[in-house]
């Protein structure tokens, strides 16, 4: 079916504003992605999976300006021993980054386009697999036009986390980055990400985990008030592999985080969790699609949102259990804490199951602060503000606890506490 003219025009206008990097191993994948995105068009307000989130500002040719935030706050993960890789408005900064070398890990950059690279088997491949049954055109656009990104190949247990730091220094920056992570059999990596990245950020990450591999991902999306981001993770999991991803989002006018996971090996485990805190002009969307296509796999989706002053939270989460994926254990919970009547939470939980011996549960709730709990705390002498904060942190705890490493949990909780106390002034 041909694209409607309006979608075609919007897409061509966007593509006209971009330049495809030329040459190297990724060229074919880029050309292929361009063809695919031309066929599907960019997201429109009438698309089923964009009905809660307006895509216009993510799709328009130029990034809307985003003021820079003046802050003297030490960035998150400051206490963590890690290998730092820094991008400023989407441009790699060698001066700010560590040496890209670590035992059991090779790190290359997408921008260094050699003719042969292992990433050729993954780049655009997982993203393309993730386009059915739901199209994710912004990720395809990313595959075609990404200017840089890291290509991480893990062959053993990485001695320390790799930390991607995204700085935002230009008010009009429009960054497109694409990372590829390949975890070999039995290998293990923790990847950290933080920072606002750009006025508008389109990021795609493909993660291929071989049998017995482990991937931990902890992300803190920066708190520049006016930034926009559309991110997508595409992961494919082999037998007995583990994928755990957590995201904290504080502020940003618009964030869409997609996560598409395919469990293709038996006994694999995938956990995706998110906590967000939004105040005022804040729209946060978590869109998750987990496909069970093997025996005895476990998946968990735990999403918590704290919203106030008209902030909006969206959750679209799906568990698809394919025929034959017996003994699947799927769990999904999405909850919002609405601190006033102006805020809203929109949730669309979906289960689609074609196997008969599975356990899948899902739940979604919206609620206010527990008045009984608040009175209990206040009756012990804790003032209303700090008591509300305590209950808010408690509300987010189920999601934060999905982070396996306790010191990283503490880093995230510290961020939330700071955010809450700033709000109280």
């Amino acid at each position, binding site marked *: 079916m041909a694209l409607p003219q309006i979608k075609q025009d919007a897409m061509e206008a966007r593509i006209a504003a971009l330049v495809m990097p030329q040459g190297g191993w990724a060229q074919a994948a880029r050309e292929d992605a361009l063809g695919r995105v031309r066929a599907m068009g960019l997201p429109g307000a009438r698309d089923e999976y964009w009905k809660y989130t307006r895509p216009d500002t993510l799709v328009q040719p130029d990034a809307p300006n985003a003021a820079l935030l003046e802050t003297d706050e030490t960035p998150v993960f400051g206490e963590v021993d890690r290998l730092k890789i820094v991008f400023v408005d989407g441009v790699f900064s060698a001066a700010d980054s560590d040496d890209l070398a670590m035992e059991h890990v090779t790190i290359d950059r997408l921008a260094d386009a050699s003719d042969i690279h292992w990433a050729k088997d993954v780049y655009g491949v997982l993203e393309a697999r993730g386009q059915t049954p739901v199209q994710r055109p912004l990720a395809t656009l990313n595959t075609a036009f990404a200017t840089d990104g890291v290509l991480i190949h893990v062959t053993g247990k990485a001695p320390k986390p790799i930390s991607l730091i995204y700085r935002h220094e230009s008010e009009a920056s429009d960054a497109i980055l694409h990372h590829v992570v390949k975890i070999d059999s039995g290998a293990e990596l923790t990847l950290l990400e933080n920072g606002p990245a750009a006025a508008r950020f389109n990021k795609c990450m493909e993660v291929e985990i071989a049998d017995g591999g482990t991937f931990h991902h902890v992300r803190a999306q920066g708190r520049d008030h006016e930034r926009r981001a559309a991110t997508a993770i595409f992961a494919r999991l082999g037998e007995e592999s583990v994928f755990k991803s957590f995201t904290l989002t504080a502020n940003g006018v618009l964030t869409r985080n997609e996560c598409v996971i395919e469990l293709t090996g038996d006994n694999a485990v995938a956990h995706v969790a998110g906590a967000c805190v939004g105040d005022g002009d804040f729209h946060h969307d978590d869109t998750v699609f987990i496909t069970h296509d093997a025996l005895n796999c476990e998946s968990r989706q735990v999403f918590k949102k704290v919203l106030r002053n008209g902030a909006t939270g969206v959750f679209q989460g799906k568990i698809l259990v394919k025929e034959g994926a017996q003994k699947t254990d799927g769990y999904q919970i999405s909850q919002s804490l609405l601190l006033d009547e102006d805020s809203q939470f929109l949730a669309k939980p979906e289960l689609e199951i074609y196997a008969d011996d599975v356990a899948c549960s899902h739940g979604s709730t919206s609620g206010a602060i527990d008045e009984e709990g608040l009175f*209990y*705390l*206040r009756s*012990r002498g804790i*003032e209303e503000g700090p008591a509300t904060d*305590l*209950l808010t942190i408690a509300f987010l705890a189920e999601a934060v606890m999905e982070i396996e490493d306790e010191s990283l949990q503490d880093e995230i909780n510290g961020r939330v506490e700071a955010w809450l106390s700033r709000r109280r002034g």
Partner: protein
Amino acid sequence: MLEIKNLHVSLEEEDKQILKGVNLTVEAGKVHAIMGPNGSGKSTLSYVLSGRDGYEVTDGTATLEGEDILEMEPEERAAAGIFLAFQYPVEIPGVGNMTFLRTAVNAQRKARGEEEMSASEFLKVVREKAKELKIDADMLKRPVNVGFSGGEKKRNEILQMAMLEPKMCILDETDSGLDVDAMKLVADGVNALRDEGRGFLVITHYQRLLDHIKPDVVHIMADGRIVKTGGPELALEVEHNGYADILAEVA
């Protein structure tokens, strides 16, 4: 210590008068008990004193050491020295018992302009007091009251009381849901806190608790008023004859 005069209270939601002129004075160092049938207004009195929402004081006063408490926020009343041991202690998932206790102790100290307790000092004190109440380390680590048995919840209330060292302790049916052994443990905890400078108001349906926490004064409450006041023997009378006789007598 606590002085309540002609206190009239109605529910905010519906136009229903619950307390219809309560007069009560609890002196420092004394234990007063309030007994009464269901619906007489005992729990309402405890909530109004601690500052819970949903009640409207239409007349009368309540002061703690001469200070009007009815105008204070719940946390201000706590810092001033009011403590309510809840009939149904609230479960707070996600907040560790220890974090909760320390936050409360230090919030009150701060409100009174005192120095905050250091982490190590706090730990030492809380362990000591927890031990007396047979509260183990696990209970201190778990989220507040989550998964606690009825007895554990009540012991946890007494632990909070011991840590916060209030001037005026109000116990709302602390004996409900407790077996004999648990009641003894709770009563021992309360008795350990009896002190010249501290007043107690013990609300209960039954005389049993008063076997363990010996009151100085017993009040009978009915239909929003205190209808009879006497010594410990009044509680025994209730135990033997029920409320009907007393109510008939004052009617």
